[in-house]
């Protein structure tokens, strides 16, 4: 009997220690690789990286100014398309929808959210690149917006639904129309949450590479028009990392660090906005 209890206690201790080791191992792997990225990226980062164009293979120096601007343009296009669709669609789901349509939209949004990014790339290619015969910033931005819409839509819906019904009733009882209620009462009450969702959406697409491979493609120079192939940071990281040149590898590390910092900052900002919103509502 005591033997059995001792065995159970040993098993208990062993297994609990193992789970702790699992946590430690996963956390340390992740911290290690990130530390390595920061270390390598920091060594490779210099002022030229932000101000110069990439040089041709073999030459050392040069930077990724065009890719930084290009990424900005692509993200801007996807925000311009993705935020309104996500937001207004979410308002419909939470405030206007009946039964069937919201269910269908919700289901397809979840579906779209799970579509592999490379397939989104193919889709944007068939719809835009094939028809316009050009790789373009448009195609890339639209591909990215497709990845952003489901996140914006579902988070808008979720946070609007979380607004207490008494607020809606109060506003309607004062004689405000439904639209006015939504615009001046419900959306402001949920704005932190909605903003968080949108920032997370942007953070997700900012680092996406696969949808850009055959939509916005790449450009060694400045792109003057949205109808031209456009360089972007993620594409450059991929392109430079698989190249055989030492100097390009260095640039890839620097670009990786810049991209990572941007994405992580966006994520932390999103959490911060949400946390602040919650405390305001509670207070």
């Amino acid at each position, binding site marked *: 009997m005591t033997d059995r209890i001792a065995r159970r*206690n040993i*098993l*208990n201790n062993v*297994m*609990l220690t193992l*789970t702790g*080791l*699992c*946590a430690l191992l*996963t*956390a340390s792997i*992740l911290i290690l*690789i990130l530390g*390595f*990225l920061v270390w390598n990226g920091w060594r490779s980062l210099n002022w030229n990286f932000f101000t110069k164009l990439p040089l041709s293979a073999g030459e050392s120096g040069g930077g990724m100014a065009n890719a930084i601007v290009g990424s900005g343009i692509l993200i801007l296009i996807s925000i311009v398309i993705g935020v*309104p*669709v996500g937001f*207004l*669609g979410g308002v*419909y789901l939470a*405030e*206007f929808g009946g039964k069937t*349509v919201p269910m269908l*939209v919700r289901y397809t*949004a*979840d*579906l779209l*959210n*799970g*579509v*592999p990014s*490379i*397939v*989104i*790339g*193919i*889709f944007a290619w*068939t*719809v835009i690149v094939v028809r316009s015969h050009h790789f373009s910033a448009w195609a890339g931005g639209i591909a990215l917006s497709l990845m952003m*819409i*489901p996140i914006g839509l579902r988070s808008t819906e979720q946070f609007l639904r979380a607004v207490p019904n008494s607020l809606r009733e109060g506003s309607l009882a004062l004689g405000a*129309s439904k*639209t006015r209620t*939504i615009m001046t009462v419900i959306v402001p009450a949920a704005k932190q949450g909605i903003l968080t969702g949108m920032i997370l959406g942007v953070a997700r697409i900012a*680092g*996406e*590479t*696969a949808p850009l491979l055959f939509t916005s493609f790449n450009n060694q120079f400045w792109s003057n028009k949205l109808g031209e192939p456009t360089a972007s940071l*993620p594409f450059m*990281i*991929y392109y430079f*990392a*698989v190249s055989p040149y030492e100097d390009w590898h260095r640039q890839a*590390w620097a670009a*990786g660090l810049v*991209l*990572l910092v941007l*994405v992580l900052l966006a*994520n932390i900002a999103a*959490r911060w906005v949400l946390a602040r919103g919650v405390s305001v509502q509670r207070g």
Partner: protein
Amino acid sequence: MGTAVIAAPPQSRARKLVKLWRDGDQVAHLVTFLFAASVFLVTVVLVYELWIHSGPSRAKFGFSFLWKTTWDPVALQFGALPFIYGTVLTSFLALLISVPLGVGAAIFLAELAGPRTSNSCTFLVELLAAVPSVIYGLLAIFTLVPLLRQYGEPFLKRTLGFLPLFQGPAYGVGYLTAALILSIMTFPFIISISRESLLAVPREQREAALALGATKWESTWQVVVPYARLGIIGSVFLALARALGETMAVTMVIGNDTAIHTSLLAPGYTIAAIIANEFTEATGDVYLSSLIELGLVLFGLTMVLNASAQLLILATTRRGSKQE
């Protein structure tokens, strides 16, 4: 809208429009409906476009596309099996590593660690889920690949080399490397969703098990984990869907070989990787549409997995909240 407009005193057309807009619930309804419907429409068009553009390949190869093993752009013979094999193999291996570690870590974070450790660890893990895949690829190329080539793969060959799984030259790139990077990329999903499912298990379940004399581990493993199992399985499905569709990191380390190899050390290919590598260079209808059909196959695979994952997660969270 109707009554508001009728009841209003006679107005100029422009003012009527302004009024209509201001408290025009119907207009708002319509506008928001159109935006919501566009999401549905885009998804339908996406499937339609994939279907139409894979037409030449479907017409030429039929279902044999799925199990043919040749990939010959010169002779225009295309089969998907090497890529399906590579995709499924790398994802499966990745989960083999990340599920035990991830669930173990989730148990630790949900059951043992104090709330502060647990929350800060989860915060870290969730940030890691946001790291772009191309960055994982970059890290894999310059750290994992050389390490595996120099130490990892020679070691595996020395110790387990009698198995057909660990034979052939150590390139550093290949199925094993892709699986390792995928396992690192899927940790965060498994940990954060499993942890949430575990936390949703009612306290009484633990207390009842402990009161009956179970050790902490027994209560966790025999009561709490089974209670949360659907959510945990859901997280695994989600991670699997993620791994199957993962493109950049895998493309950078898979080795790009269109043949099927038994050895895990050999270079291979996945569906997403071959699309990424060959799409812009593909010439001719059949070649291009074969690549698009591969995209369709990938889409189908991840769709089924995602749907099942969502159902499972929904089932657990519902049940958990009901009994709270």
